[in-house]
């Protein structure tokens, strides 16, 4: 049975601070990416798109892993808060994946000469995007709160299989996309220290933004759950 009490959690109380931290961190990260870090020897200033593109992609991975963990937790405990966390993270993950694809296309045009290339990383990312749109579609087609949460949790567990496939696709297949530059098991990052610092700063900024959006969206979903149950009663 779903609880009808929406509690004010510490996460919700932290939301204004997360919003302020996001703004400050984004401002600092943008300054580092656009002003402080040098242009790339081969790509020139086009490299600056990658700071946002890569941070978006990492956050999309994180968001979908959170969907997976929240789905497992929901099936384990049947507590609706985990369903709220899963849907919130899925929506934000879809947003970040969409942005990753768009920013990647903007970067690819001057670098590869085309907006879209049929190469493994791009295709697997597009497939991941389609999968999680399907996840959101499944949720919208189901009216019953508990059944929707159960179906979505099962799907949220299955779909996470694609996350490592996306990340490792460039090492498994011949790819135009560059190989991992930072997350290289047993190896040091290949980036210049100032570029790496800018990338880390942007990732931290996007992490704050993700946390802020999560607290807001989870709150909306919890209120929605309460409203549906009140209407049912």
């Amino acid at each position, binding site marked *: 049975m779903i609880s009808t009490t929406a509690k004010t959690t510490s996460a919700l109380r932290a939301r204004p601070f997360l919003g302020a931290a996001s703004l400050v961190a984004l401002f600092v990260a943008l300054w580092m990416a656009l002003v402080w870090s040098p242009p790339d020897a081969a790509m020139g200033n086009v490299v600056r798109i990658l700071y946002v593109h890569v941070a978006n992609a990492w956050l999309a991975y994180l968001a979908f892993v959170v969907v997976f963990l929240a789905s497992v937790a929901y099936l384990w405990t049947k507590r609706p808060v985990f369903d709220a966390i899963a849907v919130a993270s899925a929506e934000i993950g879809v947003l970040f994946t969409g942005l990753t694809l768009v920013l990647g296309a903007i970067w690819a045009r001057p670098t590869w000469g085309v907006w879209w290339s049929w190469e493994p990383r791009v295709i697997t990312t597009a497939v991941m995007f389609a999968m999680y749109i*399907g996840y959101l579609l499944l949720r919208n087609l189901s009216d019953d709160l508990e059944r929707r949460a159960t179906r979505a*949790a099962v*799907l949220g567990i299955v779909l996470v299989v694609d996350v490592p496939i996306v990340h490792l696709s460039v090492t498994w297949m011949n790819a135009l996309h560059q190989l991992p530059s930072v997350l290289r098991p047993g190896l040091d990052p290949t980036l210049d220290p100032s570029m790496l610092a800018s990338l880390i700063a942007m990732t931290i900024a996007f992490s704050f933004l993700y946390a802020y959006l999560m607290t807001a969206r989870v709150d909306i979903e919890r209120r929605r759950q309460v409203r549906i149950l009140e209407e049912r009663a």
Partner: protein
Amino acid sequence: MTLHRIRLMAAREARAERGQPDGLVAAVTFVATLILVESLAVGPLAATQPEVASALFWIAMVFAAILATTRSFERELEDDAIDAVLALPGGRDALYVGKALALTALIALVALVGGALSLLLLSLDVLLAGHLALVLVAGVLAQVPVVVLFVVIALRLRSRAALVPILALPVLVPQLVAATNGTAAAISGDAAGALGWAGLLVAFALVYSVLGLTIVPAALE
């Protein structure tokens, strides 16, 4: 006890299909029609290339598997038989595994007929027939657990006919790529390639079977 129930469930499915083989007939007809239409669309010359012929065949097979699996579960819903099965102890596991086993046999039969039809229509010479059979079996094994999983997730939902392909096709992309490459390798005489892709398909089959067995019973309502 559960093994006994699984066997009963698979036998029940096979009996239902023998008594009313509309799922099998629809799937075979669908595969044949789709191969014909796809071959015409890409042009007869392009369609006879091993890679293209293999891709057309496996795309048709994915849709046939979705069709047959959806039909099988629709039959359970028609007279609410599913509720009685789910009420039994171990009924959820038995329903999933029994259905998956019976549907694997059914879809393997569809693959056999559809594959023979493809070879005949496109005048393809197969250099490694044994390897081709192995890839076909591995391809079917890799597809069915995923399709059953998504049909179960979308069970009793409105618009499930559209939802199942939307959910299943992106997940089936790696299996489609592996099956297409393995089939083309077997047709062209590349034994190592065919065995490698067949191995990958078996790995997919194992991963999704375990995943399905672990979480699908929770989704069955």
